[in-house]
């Protein structure tokens, strides 16, 4: 990924993220989340994670956030009231963020840069040795990246147990949403 694209998408993400909390109108905040996710998708695609990048746009930006917008509009939320903020909490928050940033910059300057191997035909063919015969191995030998199959393979074989736990987690979250938002019976 050319570095100017990385900086471009990172800047979009950061601006989107800051705008979420800066806007007082919930619809504007939700749109800022969309901006943030578009930048994130760009980063994923730049890192050759094409499938994840596309899913990020389709599922999060396209489906989840649009649903959020619908709900916000249905509820007809008004702008958040402007609250008087004291100087002390603001200063404390800012100083924590700055301390964290300074530390991060110090560590990043101490850490050697690693260059990711280019995703060319030779690398892909080399990776094919990890897989026995099958669609994945054939595609890799041909110099294509079967990322959907690779993600599926990883999720449903190697990472099967975490996937099952995630299933339980989603169920718990659903039950919780119903239990907490149920209309009160008379």
């Amino acid at each position, binding site marked *: 990924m050319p570095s100017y694209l990385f900086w471009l998408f990172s800047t979009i993400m950061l601006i989107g993220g800051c705008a979420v909390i800066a806007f007082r109108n919930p619809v504007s905040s939700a749109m800022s989340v969309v901006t943030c996710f578009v930048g994130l998708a760009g980063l994923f695609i730049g890192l050759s994670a094409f499938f994840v990048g596309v899913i990020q746009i389709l599922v999060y930006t396209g489906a989840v956030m649009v649903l959020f917008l619908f709900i916000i509009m249905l509820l007809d939320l008004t702008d958040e009231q402007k609250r008087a903020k004291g100087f002390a909490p603001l200063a404390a928050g800012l100083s924590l963020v700055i301390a964290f940033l300074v530390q991060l910059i110090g*560590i990043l300057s*101490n850490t050697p840069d690693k260059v990711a191997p280019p995703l060319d035909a030779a690398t892909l063919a080399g990776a094919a040795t990890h897989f026995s015969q099958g669609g994945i191995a054939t595609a890799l030998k041909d110099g294509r990246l079967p990322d959907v199959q690779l993600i599926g393979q990883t999720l449903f*074989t190697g990472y*099967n147990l975490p996937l099952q736990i995630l299933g*339980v*987690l989603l169920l*718990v979250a659903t039950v*919780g949403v119903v*239990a907490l938002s*149920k209309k009160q019976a008379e």
Partner: protein
Amino acid sequence: MPAYYLEALTVTLGLLLLLAEAFVSSKSKAWVGVAAAIGLVFILAFTPFAIGPDASPGSGWAKWTLWNFYQFDPLSRFYKVFALVTTILVVLLAIDYRKILARYTDHPGSENGTGEFYALPVLACSGMMWLASAKDLAGAFVALELVTVTFYILVAFMRRNVGSLEAGVKYLILGALSTGFLVYGIAWVYGSTGTMDLDLIAGMLEDGRSASIPLTGLLFGIALVMVGLGFKIGAVPMQVWIPDVYQGAPTPTTAFLSVGSKASGFILMIHFLEPFLSSELTRGPVLKLIGVLSIATLLFGNLAAIPQTNFKRLLGYSSIAHAGFLLLALASGAPGTDNGLGSAQVVSVYLATYLLMTLGVFFILAQVRIQRDGESITDFNGLGQTNPTLALALTVLLAALAGVPLTAGFIGKFLVFQLAVNAGLWAAIGVAFIAAAAGFYYYLNVVRAMWWVQPGQKAHVTLPLISKACVAVLTIATLVFGIWPQPILALLK
């Protein structure tokens, strides 16, 4: 029986309870809690028969990729038993607390909204059991989130009570922040070592490949993960949520948070730190970090507990204080040997004694809350005159929390001090002595209210049957393990 059956059974039990609760029309929902407790006791009976892949290398299941995410050793078994026992007691506590739950969930007159309150702890229990077997940071993270998300719901469960909702929002926001730190830390550890498998990390740190690991980045990752886990266990400076959330949450949830959530944070911390404590590269800085955390936690938890007037809030500060002692045991960094107890074993013994005392106190607190309609220390006034047996049990439990000799609490504190002395952490020992002395003051303050203050117009407090049985068992266990701790030690061997 392969060990992963235990979690599978627990999840199945949780699903069955959710289904049954939805389809059985019954006015009272207490039977869901009774069924949950019976089911969990049933699963608990299976734990001695659970085996890992080493015990049966020939069988088909021993070769599954599942074992990349799941380990089974005596420590894992101990924490699985711990999670099950905690959940059983919390569910029993919830049964006796259902009057308050019903008042603030659906219609005040019906128990319609309370069924999930018995099923969700069972699912959280499965998450804690998976955490006890954590071996890979990705799997551990997912299990930890299962526990945390369940707690978000359980904390805000009394949705028509402002305090509970406020606690729920606070816990959600700070929990999300801590998750952010945890994931960022895991990303740094992964970026530095190239793997999330703790065994592989241990291997890399040992052999010649360690030169290729960027040490600053790895230490930064460890520090960030410790921040994330610090939220779970309530270590200073990540303890800010504890007093408010403990006070606002329904009492069974508070009990579950202070015992179950803390224990799962500690077992994950023990598993996570193991590779870094056994390598000379990272051992020094990591021990220093835990030492500083432990001193800050001991000081803050104990000194801030002194002026408290609300008993539930006091227990929140007390849980911070106990986290300080547990961190002190970890800071000694003693590896377990055949004859002596290592840091991980001492933490486990301490948590086991902490479970007995804390849950016992919560059982009594819940009934005082219901029958005297208040949770402050003054609501315990004159309990010694109106119900001397109950007051005696609470006195024993509070004395054990303070660490009076001949109670289980003393054994835990003694083992921690022993480790710290062996490791020569003199500054921390000094702070821990001040902390323990402060503990005597604020716990015995409640004892004073019970025995030396007149009850005034306060109602008579009597325990219902389940609470009475649980308090009796927990109090007697506190006394028995104070003299004879061998059963807990045997569980760890």
